[in-house]
């Protein structure tokens, strides 16, 4: 490339273009990260809501089972069925919204297990002739109508499955925090990396500005200073005109022209 003007213009333009381009890419990257973070937050919030629904349904189911298995309160069977339905409904919602539905397979298995255990008790109980029992007041219920078979079943079978289910729901709640979206996952160790593109661009721009200064000094300032000094020496002391600096294009021409001028001056004087 020839011409000081062109060099300086291209130098400045490259700094501007670099700043602009790196700024745009950095913004793009940051917006990607921002979107990912937003997705994670909303997914996390949604998962929490679903988990809350699940815990509520599971708790209701447990209460209902407790009433009909131990206290023979058969009116709670409907509530039990309703709660189980709600629990499965929440699971369907979770599956619909999950990026990877296969991760919910173990939760689904636990819910299915809970249904099977509950149904197995109902089937077993149906085999026994049903007694019509008036629903007693809760305060007297424990002492009066406690079924020892039901209690054993509840403790040995139902409670175990229920606790496993609760654990699985807890896993589901915390799962979103451990499986972040790919881009945001890169940030999980060092949050400062979100500004890495901007920081690196800045370092490179500083290096380029320093190089620009260095080249301007060597190829522009130094030759001009030397030319001026040599010209002054010639005019004052009649010392031969010579410039030792590295010259570029127009400066080279300038020095050549000064030398020609000096030669003409010497000829005229002679």
């Amino acid at each position: 490339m020839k011409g000081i003007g062109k060099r300086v213009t291209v130098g400045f333009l490259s700094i501007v273009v670099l700043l602009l381009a790196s700024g745009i890419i950095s913004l793009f990257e940051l917006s990607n990260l921002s979107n990912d973070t937003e997705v994670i937050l909303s997914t996390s919030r949604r998962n929490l809501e679903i988990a809350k629904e699940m815990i509520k349904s599971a708790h209701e189911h447990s209460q209902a089972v407790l009433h009909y298995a131990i206290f023979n309160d058969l009116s709670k069977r409907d509530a039990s069925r309703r709660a189980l339905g709600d629990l499965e409904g929440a699971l369907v919602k979770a599956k619909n919204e999950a990026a990877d539905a296969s991760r919910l397979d173990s939760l689904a298995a636990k819910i299915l297990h809970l249904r099977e255990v509950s149904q197995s008790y109902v089937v077993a109980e149906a085999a026994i002739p049903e007694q019509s029992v008036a629903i007693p007041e809760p305060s007297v219920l424990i002492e009066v109508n406690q079924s020892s078979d039901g209690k054993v079943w509840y403790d040995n079978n139902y409670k175990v499955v229920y606790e496993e289910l609760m654990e699985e729901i807890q896993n589901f709640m915390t799962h979103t925090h451990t499986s972040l979206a790919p881009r945001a996952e890169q940030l999980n160790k060092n949050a400062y990396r979100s500004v890495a593109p901007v920081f690196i661009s800045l370092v490179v721009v500083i290096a380029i500005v320093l190089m620009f200064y260095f080249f301007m000094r060597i190829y522009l300032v130094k030759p001009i200073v030397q030319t001026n000094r040599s010209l002054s020496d010639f005019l004052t002391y009649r010392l031969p005109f010579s410039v030792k600096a590295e010259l570029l294009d127009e400066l080279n021409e300038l020095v050549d022209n000064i030398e020609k001028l000096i030669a003409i001056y010497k000829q005229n004087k002679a």
Partner: protein
Amino acid sequence: MRESVILRYIGAVMLCVSAFMAVSAVISYVNNVDSGFYPLLLSALLTFTLGAFPLLFVPRGKSISNKEGFAIVVGSWILATIVGMFPYLIWGGEFSLVNAWFESVSGFTATGATILNDIEALPQGLLFYRTSTNWLGGVGVVMFALVILPSLGTSRMSLSNVELSSLARDNYRYRTQVIVRILLVIYVGLTAITTLSLKFAGMRWFDALNHAMSACATAGFSTKNLSIAFYDNPTVELILAAAMLISSLHFGLIYATFLRKSNNIFRSEVVRTYMLIIAAATVFITVSLYGASIYTSLFEAFRHSYFQVVSLITTTGFSTADTNLWTPLAIVVLIFVSIVCACAGSTSGGMKVDRLLIFCKILWARIRHQQHPNAVIRIRVDGVVQDNEMLNNVVLFIVTYIALILVASFTNTLFGQDLMTAFSSAVACVGNIGPGFGEVGSMGNFAQIPSILKIQNSFLMLMGRLEIFGFIQLFFLKWWR
């Protein structure tokens, strides 16, 4: 020294690096714009601007002095490792500042040591970029600047002098322009042939290319966490071993062999010694492993033994087995070949067989001299008498090399590493090998070591690649005047 001229040539090298970043970005783009695309694109842009800037100002066509050539090589390597960090840092994941620096240095020095626990988590573009740093480092980033820059005049020789081992220089009996062409043809040709062979052996195109690049650079970055053990394929191992072995020979000799010249591979004393070491090491390890019933069949013992020996002696570092589980004899032999390494004038790092051969000859000459005090004993390699300066340099280099390993082992143990890990990681980094033993074994990595040791090991890799004195010299201010 003209700093502007140095900057111009370093700038040209940066353009090469940015070109590879751009190619990697294209791979990311083709791969459904994976997460490596923007980091690679931005890095390519930044590196390109950084490299192109000096080319704008500094006039071309100037010859350069040896000192300037030297500064260009070392400066290029250091700057390449710095800009090489950009894609890693921007991408994130396991790459902290120190980890990115380590990975970048390991790449450009063709070491192949990694801090990554999960290599397969990297997007394809970044995986390719990682291997391309190996490939660039293998032949020397500076050579690319020589190839792409027209009309350099005498500058070419100045650059190759530093890039190649001083021993290798003597073996080159061609004009420098021819040397550049020889290196390029052999390197690119070998990479292409290895890629095709690996593809036919059952690898995917992407993996075949990456492994071929890594093998020809004798570097060792793999696209799989288990390295070559992932494929469990004897054909793949054979192809890679052949590629590593050829790349670890003097490129000038390879060229001479193709041209059927007298100074070829089959007549070279150094190559004969090298092959002898490989054969002996393989036999020792095979017998040891089979004897200890680590492998039930003799073929399996041989298969893993020859691959690991070739992988370590060529300073590549690919692995097919967990060598930590091998017998103490096998480990000692592997450490020995890790110290000796391959031939000068190849892409390998380390002490070089040439030096070992000369050192043995010096020892033998000393013994003979004691028997015949008045005898004039000349030391020859391939019939060429070696002058005293060369002999002194060889001894000095070997002493410094061993001292450096011991000092590095000391600092490694200072920061809590066990003796095996400390010593083998020092050997692996100074020799640009990659894996060692213990925590940094063939199935391990450098992720768990303290950051300070990662920085130390990065400098060891740079020192090893620049043949120790080349790196040290840069820090003497007097030299710059």
